[in-house]
């Protein structure tokens, strides 16, 4: 296996690779975080509702 350095321009492939990795990982992170915040708010709201009902009695 002898040394011949490929001098081709691979910047398109490299940019596309890093670009897709960034977009996909960012999307998974954002959806996860937003989902978590929404679920937390809903759980807290339900808990508060329940508490107020109990106090009404």
């Amino acid at each position, binding site marked *: *296996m*002898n*040394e*011949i*350095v*490929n001098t*081709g321009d691979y910047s398109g492939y490299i940019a596309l690779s890093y670009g897709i990795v960034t977009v996909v990982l960012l999307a998974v992170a954002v959806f996860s975080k937003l989902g978590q915040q929404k679920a937390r708010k809903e759980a807290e709201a339900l808990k508060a509702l329940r508490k107020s009902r109990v106090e009404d009695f």
Partner: protein
Amino acid sequence: MAKSGMKTRKKQRLLVMITGIVVLFAAVFLVLFAMGKDSLSLFLQPSGVQERQMEPGRHFRLGGLVAMESYSKAEDGLTHQFTVTDCVVDVPVVFKGLLPDLFREGQGIVSEGALNEDGVFVATTVLAKHDENYAPPGTMPTNTDACVHPGG
């Protein structure tokens, strides 16, 4: 009483699960090895081609190293000739088209095509294989024989 019942049930589940996994793994690996190296491999090496006495015109993938000093380009600039070897058997290859960037003598390749009547492999595609080495330029020893791995 109830508690010890829970425990035996958990133990039972554990036993069933472990047995199931062991049997599954054994079955899958037995099937894979029964199918053999050839049927699950991407390509045949030159020795395999000779062993199976592939008849001319039959389509298959040939893989191996490009023998040193075997490469030549025809005058049209598009027809490439080289020898693929597994260090036991040599197969001459002719290919018309663009070679991938990693193609060079001493490099592994995988090529699709068929043998012609003269025992020359007429390739329709040539893919270059990369080996496991990653190094900056000027650090790898040069080799003059494709079959002798430099430094080991």
